[in-house]
């Protein structure tokens, strides 16, 4: 019987391989869909790490923006840092921001945590708009380069490879964290903070660690987004993407890595199937989330169907 860690590792490797194989056989359009799927997969996996500490943040996409703007700013003159280094810097800056943010927001719980992260995310988005000299204001920063490390930076397939590799590496890191003593303590704090504290566990530090490490992944994903799209603007930090991440976790469940990824796959399929009637996609997503909440046995547990698949 495969253990939880092995199943998570297998899930991540299968997703990484599926992305590359899909890119080999798919049309140029499918290639684009797979790249975006890969980058959003990094977002949902990193978001899952945050949820293990017991809070559902609404600042994840805004924190992703830190990564995006890091690449937009540092890959251009006068810095001209290699794009991949800028992507890594974006992850570090996102983690640093999360560390600072964790001091006030991790003193809140439940709805208050949700609200405080929502407010923090909005404040961050406003900073991107208002610090025009650095961020380009509402117009953002355009014509961001692809990583020069790729033999052909304009090749979408090579970019997909890069996304798949980063997804697998980050996924393995999060899986290792999940299976480690520290990861187990984070989950214990998430499930019962009072009990964990009574056992001598530093609940605040562990919650902060989960938040910071999850935000690191968001920063990396943001950097990749900026490089792939060639533009980073405040409008890219929008509620729809945040909703998609949360919905993927709600629909698939957060118990194991396969949950959010399957949730995301499901939402992506809906998006593509209904692409000719795009006005209905938000409604269908909304209905799915409501259905998932009704059908799930407990918060964060995911659908019964998912539990059967995951058993």
């Amino acid at each position, binding site marked *: 019987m495969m253990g939880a860690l092995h199943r998570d590792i297998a899930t991540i490797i299968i997703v990484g391989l599926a992305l590359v194989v899909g890119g080999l056989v798919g*049309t*140029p*359009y499918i290639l*684009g869909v797979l790249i*975006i799927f890969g980058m959003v997969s990094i977002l949902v996996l990193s978001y899952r790490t945050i949820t293990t500490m017991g809070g559902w943040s609404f600042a994840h996409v805004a924190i992703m923006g830190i990564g995006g703007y890091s690449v937009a700013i540092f890959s251009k003159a006068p810095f001209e840092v290699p794009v991949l280094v800028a992507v890594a810097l974006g992850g570090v800056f996102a983690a640093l921001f999360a560390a600072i943010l964790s001091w006030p927001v991790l003193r809140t719980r439940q709805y208050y945590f949700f609200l405080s992260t929502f407010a923090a995310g909005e404040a961050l988005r*406003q900073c991107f*708009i208002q610090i025009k000299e650095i961020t380009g*204001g*509402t*117009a*953002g920063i*355009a*014509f961001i380069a692809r990583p020069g490390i790729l033999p052909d930076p304009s090749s979408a397939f090579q970019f997909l490879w890069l996304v798949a590799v980063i997804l697998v590496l980050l996924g393995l890191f999060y899986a290792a964290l999940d299976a480690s003593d520290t990861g187990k303590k984070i989950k214990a704090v998430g499930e019962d903070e009072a009990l964990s504290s009574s056992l001598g566990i530093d609940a605040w530090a562990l919650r902060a660690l989960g938040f910071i490490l999850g935000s690191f992944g968001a920063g990396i994903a943001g950097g990749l*987004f900026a490089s792939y*799209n*060639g*533009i980073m*603007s*405040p*409008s*890219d930090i*929008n509620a*729809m993407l945040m909703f998609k991440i949360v919905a993927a976790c709600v629909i698939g469940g957060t118990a194991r890595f396969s949950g959010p990824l399957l949730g995301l796959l499901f939402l992506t399929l809906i998006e593509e199937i209904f*692409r*000719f009637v*795009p*006005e*209905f*996609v*938000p409604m269908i997503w909304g209905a799915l989330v409501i259905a998932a909440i009704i059908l799930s046995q407990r918060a964060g547990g995911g659908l019964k169907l998912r539990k059967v698949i995951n058993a």
Partner: protein
Amino acid sequence: MDLMTRIIVAGVFACGLTGYASAQETINIGVVQPQAGECAQWGVPITRGVQIWAEEFNANGGIADATGKKHQIKVTTYDNNCYTAGDELTAFRRAILDDKVNFILQTFTPASRQAVAQIATENKVLTTSYGAGYLNAKYPFLIGSVTGSPGSYMFLVSHLLETRPDIKKVAIVTADHSFGQAALAYYKAGITPYAKRVEIVYSQPYDPASTSDMLGLATPIFASSPDLIVELGFTPGQQALFIEAMEQLGYKGLYGSEGWTMGLVTERIPAAQLAGRVFSAYVVDASEPSFSPRVSKFYKSYVEKYGQKEWSVLASVAYAAMTTVEAGIQKAAAPTGDAVRQALFTTDTVDQPLFGKSHWGGAEMYGANNWLLTPLPVYVTDDKGGVKVDAVVDVAKWWNANKDAALPVLAQGGQVSANK
């Protein structure tokens, strides 16, 4: 004829029709606009404008290219999540890479145009807008096929200041997003030639989220005592709420914008109260019958299909933008993005089907003459909530006379991309 013969004849006829249809080479046109949420108030009428334009041709067997060959037009819509640059690019990827569209109509929003510049050019998909927004010599497949936005803001405010010397104070009300930022720069550029006698008394951009408190937004604007308020960024519904709030505060001056959905405005304020005070200039307003019989016919088709209450000037703006593409298709040997672009740029003018001979311009701003400067009708409301033509601005002439004053202001507002 027995049943079997009928089936065979029908089958052969159907095959013939299929063959004919494929030989026709359908022209695929993509419309990238918000299809859901609040921004659909803009996106849906724009989409409908393109669809009616296509239906007009399809009903007559299609649009003929320079060889006389007729082509049916297929219009596909794509959502851009309220002009989000990343989603605009995703929509373009779908349209170009999967649906193989030949032409795309998109927003003039500079960030969105920048986001798609490369993919449109690499795939030679002629990408137009109801205005310029962002153009660049490096991206020749990005064009502005009518004067439109954001240039029209400059010409509108300038026209009002020129023809109404009693205007001394102007309030500029723009949203704090990419196209609001563009509008602010263009409004300021239009005021610059009159800077000696006109003062900008309000120009603080607002957060779009703050429009839920319209009275709170309107109060400081009213306190600045403007004679003219020019706006950009409100949805049609918000425009009506804004005018209502200003009127409640006792404002008696003029309003200017790219367009007003007067049906929504007059639900709140009597048309007679606003007669002669509400101005618009976008591209063309089809609800006004005298400017062009063709757009007037389009207006009737629109109202017949969707109803009077659904009318929005944005539909005619999109329709007008497509007529430049139409002129290119009719001059091109084949309806491809490349051939149509070449046909349009054969000379420095285009015989625009609605506006007549119009010059390509924009080099001083964008480093490329890819912006078609069509004459700009300015409209004013009447006492029945309709509009009439106040004047038609010769924008090419205005630009030549005022560009030295306007260019530095536009550059300061981040709207000049020449040499970048």
